[in-house]
C-alpha cells in the first residue's frame, strides 16, 4: 500500500519530535513492503502539494503533537482548506503524540479527530496516542533511539491493513494513567531529578533565568534578572 503522511507539527522538520516519530514509523511501513510520502505543514510551501496528495490518495495518516488539548493551529488551518471527498474508499488515521506520560491526556483531542474523517468524506482508521515524548530531542541519541524503536513495529503493524489495530493500541499506547506507585515517585524524589534535568537542558540552551520566572510581574522581573540558574 502507499501512504500519504502529513505532519501537523508546528516545529520545523529538523527539530520536530513528530518528524522523528514519522521517520521510525515509515521504517516499519517500509519493512512491511509499503511506500509512503511525507508532507510537513510547518513548511507552508508544501501545503499545496499536501492538499493534492490528500485529494488523490486513499490512505492518509496525520501525525501530530497534542497542542492545548487538540490539534495544532496550523493543522486546523490546513484541515479547513480541504474539501470533503466525493468518491468513497479513502481512510484517515491519526498518530497523536504528547509530552505528558498518560495516554488519557490525548482523549479529548481523539474525540475531535474521530469526527474528522466523516466530515472529509473518508473512513476512520483509528487514532494511536503516545505520551512521554517531550524529551525525545533532549535526551541524546541513545535514549532517542530507544524511545523511537516501538514506532518501527507500530508502523509495520499499521501497514498490514492501513489502520490501527486494537492489539497495536493495547500493546503500545500505554499507560492510560500512571500507577499509584508511579505517581508517588513522580511527586516525590523524581520531581527533584526532573527539575535538575530541566535546569540543565535550559542552561545548555542559554537560559539565564529561573524556569519559573514571572516576567510580567514587576517585582519578579527584578528578582529573576538578578538570579541565575
Amino acid at each position, binding site marked *: 500500500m502507499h501512504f500519504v503522511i502529513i505532519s501537523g507539527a508546528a516545529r*520545523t522538520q529538523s527539530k520536530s519530535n513528530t518528524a522523528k516519530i514519522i521517520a521510525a514509523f515509515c521504517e516499519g511501513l517500509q519493512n512491511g513492503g509499503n511506500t509512503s510520502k511525507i508532507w510537513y505543514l510547518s513548511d507552508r510551501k508544501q501545503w499545496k502539494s499536501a492538499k493534492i496528495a490528500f485529494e488523490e490518495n486513499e490512505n492518509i495518516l496525520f501525525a501530530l503533537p497534542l497542542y492545548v488539548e487538540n490539534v495544532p493551529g*496550523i493543522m*486546523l488551518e490546513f*484541515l*479547513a482548506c480541504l474539501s470533503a471527498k466525493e468518491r468513497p474508499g479513502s481512510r484517515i488515521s491519526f498518530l497523536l503524540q504528547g509530552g505528558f506520560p498518560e495516554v*488519557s*491526556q490525548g482523549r479529548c483531542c481523539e474525540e475531535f479527530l474521530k469526527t474528522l474523517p466523516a466530515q472529509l468524506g473518508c473512513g476512520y482508521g483509528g487514532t494511536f496516542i503516545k505520551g512521554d515524548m517531550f524529551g525525545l530531542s533532549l535526551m541524546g541519541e541513545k535514549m532517542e533511539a530507544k524511545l523511537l524503536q516501538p514506532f518501527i513495529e507500530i508502523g509495520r503493524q499499521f501497514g498490514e491493513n492501513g489502520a490501527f489495530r486494537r492489539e497495536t493500541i493495547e500493546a503500545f499506547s500505554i499507560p492510560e494513567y500512571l500507577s499509584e506507585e508511579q505517581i508517588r515517585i513522580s*511527586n516525590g524524589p523524581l520531581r527533584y531529578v526532573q*527539575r535538575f534535568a530541566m535546569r540543565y537542558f535550559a542552561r545548555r540552551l542559554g537560559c539565564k533565568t529561573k524556569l519559573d520566572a514571572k516576567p510580567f*510581574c514587576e517585582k519578579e522581573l527584578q528578582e529573576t534578572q538578578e538570579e541565575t540558574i
Partner: protein
Amino acid sequence: MRLLIINTLPKVHPAAEKAICCLTEKASECMTFYTEDMRITPCIGCNACWLKTPGICAVKDDYEQILKAYLQYDVTLFISDTALGFINYKMKHVIDRILPMATMYTRIENGQTRHVPRYNKEFRFGLLYAGKGNQDYLAHWMSRFCLNFHGISLGAFPIEAWEEVCACIS
C-alpha cells in the same frame, strides 16, 4: 469584575458586536482585542517560553499584550468562529500561544500530570462561538484546557446566547 474579550471574528459581525456591547456594560472594566487588527502568528513549538526565556514567547508579534492582559483581568472571554465543529484556526492560533503562562515543571494532580502554573492566578475562561460548533465538545474542550492551565471554565455558548456568560461573570 474586569473583563478581557479576545475577538477573532470580523469587527463587523452583528452578533459579536451586540454581545461585546452588552458584556462591556456589565463589566466594571473591559478590554477588547480585535485580532483582525493584530499580527498574531501561530505557535512554532520552539519551547523557548519554557526552556530558554521562561515566560516570554520567542515569536515577536502583537501577542505579548494579550499575554499580559490575561494576568490583568479577572475573566477572559474568547469570541470565535467555528470550523469542523470546533473553534476555527484563528482562535486556535491565539490559544496555542498561551503556553508561557505555564512552566516547564510538572506535577501530578488528581491522577494526571499538569504543568506547574507560572503565575499565582486562577484564570477564568469562557467561549462564545459563531457558526455550527459542537457545543458539548467545545464545553468539554474548554474544561480540559482550563484544567491544564489551573483555571475555571465558564463554558462554551453560541454567540446569540451571550446572556448565559453574563450569568457566569456577574
